[in-house]
């Protein structure tokens, strides 16, 4: 554990896994048969192994800002509008510096009228511009949801291809901390059920950059669900990610951590919790595969199913309400396509089935915690007590 922390600190300081291995600081052990409780020592942020040796840290906020900046620079049709995006530099500072750089014609502060400005954004997209409409949080998108669904999502279909809508709706989604019931709703399941929309949700800075760029370039309406609590988190980004042409594919999940005993699916902030859970599980001899969905619609059913066919067990985790949620869809998909591969019922971890309470202890109970994910994974592995120490 101490070694892990040390590795974590050292890697966050900018040294790559490769360098650490070279210096003998980490030894890789491949367990034979499953005796040793720690098969492999891996840093918490495991995507290091894919990167070149020079690794930079980037906050998600910075990642989003740079993605917006680059796409606005590359295409004059892209413009940003929303409440406080201009002079205030963004309610969460995501659009910092953009007004100064692109001027008030391309970075537009709107009045607090979501139905009005969202409709205006969609109309501009009908004409051929590429708006990025920011909702201060997706809770406020409900005031404009008719435009997102009836005016944006369905237009290309109803017009048989005449009216396409190259628009991005973005903003923080889900729970923050202590903001109460009206400001903590997760909309992933709602928007992802609508044909004609694409729904993306980044976790790391690489995700934030790559997916936002993909969303802005995409000719269809994209709902881009960020997370307020992730804005301030830093992740390592490679030179490839920092390049202005960097883009991630829409519809492809990422395997954040490989494993062989149980599959855990998650998106946005919950990916971080799932990775922590995987660490704890690893110490108890359960090797968890963590999938970062990245794309809620289209859902990467093939990656999920391939993983379940490998591990035979599934835990779906999400922040939103459980009924008719993302996990329910994933469960159904796996049962339809990989039923005979399942060795245990699918486990679902989700937000509690209540409006978000304010009191800190109740709020903690209303949102998935690492322990919940660990417990569910163990249930899926039919283990409710920690493994006995190796003989």
């Amino acid at each position, binding site marked *: 554990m101490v070694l892990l922390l040390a590795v974590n600190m050292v890697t966050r300081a900018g040294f790559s896994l490769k360098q650490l291995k070279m210096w003998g600081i980490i030894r890789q052990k491949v367990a034979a048969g499953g005796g040793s409780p720690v098969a492999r020592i891996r840093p918490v942020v495991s995507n290091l192994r894919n990167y070149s040796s020079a690794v930079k840290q980037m906050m998600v906020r910075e990642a989003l800002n740079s993605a917006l900046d680059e796409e606005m620079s590359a295409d004059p049709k892209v413009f940003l509008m929303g409440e406080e995006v201009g002079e205030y530099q963004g309610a969460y500072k995501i659009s910092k510096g953009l007004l100064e750089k692109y001027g008030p014609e391309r970075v537009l502060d709107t009045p607090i009228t979501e139905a009005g400005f969202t409709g205006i954004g*969609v*109309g501009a997209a009908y004409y051929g511009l590429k708006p990025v409409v920011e909702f201060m949080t997706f809770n406020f998108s409900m005031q404009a949801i008719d435009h997102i669904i009836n005016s944006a999502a369905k237009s*290309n*279909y109803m017009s048989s291809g005449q009216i396409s809508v190259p628009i991005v709706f973005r903003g923080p989604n889900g729970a923050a901390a202590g903001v109460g019931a009206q400001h903590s709703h997760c909309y992933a399941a709602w928007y992802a059920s609508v044909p004609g929309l694409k729904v993306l949700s980044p976790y790391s800075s690489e995700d934030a950059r790559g997916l936002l760029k993909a969303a802005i370039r995409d000719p269809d309406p994209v709902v881009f669900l960020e997370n307020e609590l992730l804005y301030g988190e830093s992740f390592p980004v490679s030179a490839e990610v920092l390049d202005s042409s960097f883009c991630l594919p829409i519809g492809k999940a990422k395997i954040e951590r490989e494993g062989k005993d149980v599959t855990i699916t998650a998106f946005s902030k919950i990916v971080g919790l799932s990775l922590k859970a995987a660490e704890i599980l690893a110490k108890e001899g359960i090797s968890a595969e963590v999938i970062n969905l990245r794309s809620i619609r289209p859902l990467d059913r093939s990656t999920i199913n391939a993983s379940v066919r490998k591990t035979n067990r599934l835990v779906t985790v999400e922040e939103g309400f459980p009924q008719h949620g993302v996990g329910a869809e994933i469960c159904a998909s796996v049962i339809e396509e990989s039923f005979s591969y399942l060795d245990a019922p699918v486990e679902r971890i989700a937000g509690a089935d209540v409006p978000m309470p304010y009191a800190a202890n109740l709020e903690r109970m209303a949102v998935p915690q690492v322990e919940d994910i660990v417990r569910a994974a163990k249930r899926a592995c039919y283990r409710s007590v920690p493994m006995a120490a190796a003989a």
Partner: protein
Amino acid sequence: MALSKLSSPSSLSTNILKPLTNSFLLHRPISTDTTPLTIETSVPFTSHQCEAPSRSVETTPKELLSFFRQMATMRRMEIAADSLYKAKLVRGFCHLYDGQEAVAIGMEAGITKKDSIITAYRDHCTFLGRGGTLLEVFSELMGRKDGCSHGKGGSMHFYKKDSGFYGGHGIVGAQIPLGCGLAFAQKYSKDETVTFALYGDGAANQGQLFEALNIAALWDLPAILVCENNHYGMGTAEWRAAKSPSYYKRGDYVPGLKVDGMDALAVKQACKFAKEHALKNGPMILEMDTYRYHGHSMSDPGSTYRTRDEISGVRQERDPIERIRKLILAHDLATEKELKDIEKEVRKEVDDAIAKAKESPMPEPSELFTNVYVKGYGVEVFGADRKEVRGVLP
């Protein structure tokens, strides 16, 4: 052609007209005479926060005859749609525009195809005015391949983007912010064009109208909001729905104009005026005082909330086609027989289009899965039984 021979500056003589009637006009009923003609609108404009345009409208015989022909086509089309609906060839919703033709026609005369129009669901005639064909209308109504949306939209979802018609919207009021968005894009692109966003007296109370109007005024968008006030929001009369039914004044800080919507020339004048205004000064509201003869839709007889006397009264006193007919006859631009011949031709055109539309096939089953996205990334899509019917989005 016959009429052009008579296009000397002096007034046309009916004596010369008569012998030539039979030979030419059956084949070329529309006059190409472009001698300017000045006609007064039925009533003066009433304005709010602006100076009303003049009552005297410049037009030409050619324009008046084209008004007549196009409005007759629209009228016949809507009546034919009524019959098709009753014959169950048109399903779902069918909202007819007969009575309101002058708004569609007058607007077209005052603007260009580079300007944009967006409206709600009573869109058949607006679509035709923008250059759509009768075949496209009837095919779409019957859900066939040759429809303007290839059968996938239906009555409420006609579009013609290449001539600036952006639909065709089913949600009351939604088209208003969308229209302001079109205007935003026109300004952003420096196109020097404007958008006309049409809505009814029912939609005039929608909150999103005021939200969009506020932004349009704040940002000086070239948006013109046009209230087609036919005095009934479905079954609810305007005085039962709006505290202030002076829709042209509802913009408060936004200038407005009240127009006789049954007078195509008044509509033309108002739209020209509004376009000039919007390009310089930002948004404007036009209220077209108009009337629909049919009920709200085909499921509404239209007579439970208004008297038959009222409907026939409007038809007798204010019908837009009759007004143009009287003008044409009064100025000797055509004879009664010529006009009747135009109407006969129009009827035949409509019947032919219906016959052709009836032959148009329904869309292929594979069309169920097309146009969900512009770019589908090869994603799987499912039918009702996902194990039976699956597709891949291109």
